[in-house]
């Protein structure tokens, strides 16, 4: 099966930021490897990957802190490659903020506008407007160390927006906040960015942050884009094993393609035969999958798309008869998370199938417990076929 091409075009509108064949070498190490992407005006675009994947280097090239080894960055028709940071029409919100510790909140926010040589009345007006936007007017005279983490984050945002940048760069914007505050701040941050209407490129290693905030996500590994798409596309139709595994939880099963019919595929794995409805089997980029019968493939199946039951599952009306998409195993492990429970079902081959079950009722009539034998089953619309 051919690799799905990353979606290069923005979902709508003309490209505002065009990155073409961008490369960055550090000595012998290629940190960013031939990256091209178009980003539309008003988008919040997330670069998602684990540390060392090149996402920060890419962001630093956009900000002008690193000079690209090759390629171009064009923002609204202007080539930015190699432009000094103090000249570039973008501003960055730094990881853990880099607020100036010796200046008040007000002076921190005013630092950018003052450098543009605006008259002081205009600087004051803009700083006051920014502080109102992030609801910190009352804290204008404080120093950064007198603020909480969330307030510092808002000062950093106000400071990076105060010069009215054409492009806002966010480096791990919420990385320094604790989990509960992070969730609240995600929404707040998106609201402010949308209110200002600035186009935004963010870097994060936190997939939830990327999913909730971004309009599109690029999953990066080893300096390359593995997949670019809306959060739901990345999650539901991952382009390859890495993306499937990196985003959320997944069960990956290796098997052989045994049938390629007009509306479905059959993949024989060690424990189970998968019947996969064709329109859902593969990411939309290159249409329906077609493979050679006998080819080795992987089937990706998300834990929440599997039902677990004590008894053999009933074959539903809209599902074809036959022994597909169900398997029996022993509950080896169980983790209770409150709103859902994750079961690890040990199959005959030794594979532990992860199943996530919503706890829709407070008590189950017949709870499934450690050591129980249980059935796992799923619909033919649940899986994705990937290259092995």
């Amino acid at each position, binding site marked *: 099966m051919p690799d799905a091409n990353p979606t290069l075009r923005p979902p709508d509108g003309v490209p505002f930021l065009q990155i073409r064949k961008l490369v960055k070498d550090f000595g012998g190490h290629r940190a960013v490897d031939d990256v091209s992407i178009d980003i539309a005006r008003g988008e919040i675009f997330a670069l998602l990957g684990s540390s060392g994947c090149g996402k920060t280097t890419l962001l630093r090239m956009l*900000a*002008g*802190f690193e000079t690209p080894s090759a390629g171009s960055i064009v923002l609204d028709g202007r080539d930015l490659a190699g432009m*000094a*940071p*103090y000249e*570039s029409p973008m*501003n*960055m919100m*730094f990881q853990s903020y*880099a*607020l*100036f*510790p*010796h200046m008040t909140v007000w002076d921190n926010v005013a*630092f*950018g506008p003052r*450098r*543009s040589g605006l008259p002081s009345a205009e600087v004051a007006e803009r700083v006051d407007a920014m502080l109102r936007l992030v609801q910190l007017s009352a804290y204008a005279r404080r*120093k950064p*160390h*007198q603020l909480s983490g969330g307030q510092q984050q808002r000062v950093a945002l106000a*400071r*990076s927006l105060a*010069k009215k940048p054409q492009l806002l760069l966010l480096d791990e914007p919420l990385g320094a906040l604790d989990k509960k505050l992070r969730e609240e701040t995600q929404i707040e941050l998106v609201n402010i960015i949308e209110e200002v209407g600035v186009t935004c490129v963010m870097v994060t290693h936190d997939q939830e942050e990327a999913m909730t905030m971004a309009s599109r996500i690029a999953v990066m590994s080893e300096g390359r884009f593995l997949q670019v798409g809306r959060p739901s596309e990345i999650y539901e139709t991952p382009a390859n094993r890495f993306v499937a595994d990196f985003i959320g939880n997944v069960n990956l099963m290796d098997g052989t393609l045994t049938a390629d019919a007009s509306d479905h595929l059959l993949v024989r794995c060690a424990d189970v035969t998968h019947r996969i409805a064709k329109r859902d089997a593969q990411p939309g980029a290159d249409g329906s999958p077609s493979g050679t019968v006998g080819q080795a493939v992987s089937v990706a199946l998300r834990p929440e798309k599997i039902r677990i039951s004590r008894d053999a599952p009933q074959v539903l009306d809209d599902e074809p008869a036959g022994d597909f998409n169900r398997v029996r195993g022993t509950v080896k492990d169980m983790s209770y998370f409150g709103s859902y429970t994750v079961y690890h079902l040990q199959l005959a081959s030794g594979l532990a199938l992860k199943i996530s079950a919503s706890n829709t009722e407070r008590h189950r009539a017949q709870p499934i417990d450690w050591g129980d034998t249980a059935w796992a089953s799923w619909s033919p619309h649940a899986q994705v076929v990937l290259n092995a």
Partner: protein
Amino acid sequence: MSAPSSSSKGSGHGRLAVIGIPYFWLLVFFLLPFLIVMKISVSEMDEVTFRDILSFDQGRPVLALRFDNYLTLLRDDLYLLTYLASLKYAAVTTLLCLAIGYPFAYFMARARSTLQPALLMLVMLPFWTSFLLRVYAWKALLTEHGWAADAIRAIGLDRLLFRANLIPGPEQLMNTPFSLVLGMTYTYLPFMILPLYSNLSKMDLRLLEAAADLGATAWIAFWKITVPLSKAGIVAGSMLVFIPCVGEYVIPELLGGPQTQMIGRTLWDEFFSNNDWPMAATVAVAMVLLIIVPLALFNKVEAETLEARR
């Protein structure tokens, strides 16, 4: 927080020792001698000894305090002028050390991390030779055919110094304000560099990136971010240079001239030439007060701003 306090209670004796030993040291070797010097400064002088300030006349204690010396100090401009000269040379030396030391410390702190220990070593290397020897070396270097004197003449610096009234004639470098300040700057430069280096090397360089991102050129970022953030290092270095310079005796004695009477030399003369110990003690007390009072005020202001920032 009960856990840390209970553990600190357990090591109470250790804490007492850690705090107590330096205090004890200061008490025995600073406060007591200072009190003795103060006592001498208000004592009556006999032939070669001074009288006790407290005597007993038929069982009644008699306190004999003489404040004449302090009055002399105020009346005779010699003392006032030498104090002012000391402050002036110390201030000039401090500024020169700052002007030379800051760029040095800055580039040392920004040098490759593998290079930094070597650079630090170079700064401290002069300490391995006797201070006296090094000052004597300058004497040789600055006399008529010394290397430094030849070099200064070769580039015409001596004429510039003469025009600035720092040397009495174009070829006379030794025993001038110039040689004095040169010697003090040379000697005290490491005391400026080390605290500045320690401060600058700890600076968060992302702040400079943030400044650049917001439109500041490297020059503006330096003045708006680096310099204000290194204030503590500047203050510490300046104190370490200024305070010993005010009371410096050896360098003015060896490199200074008749023009450059500093308080250290006046002190020496009172003790050993005039043999007037009470007067010498008075000069010493005045010098300590002159340095300590502004410093204490400065520290108080600093502490208050620190407190206000909390």
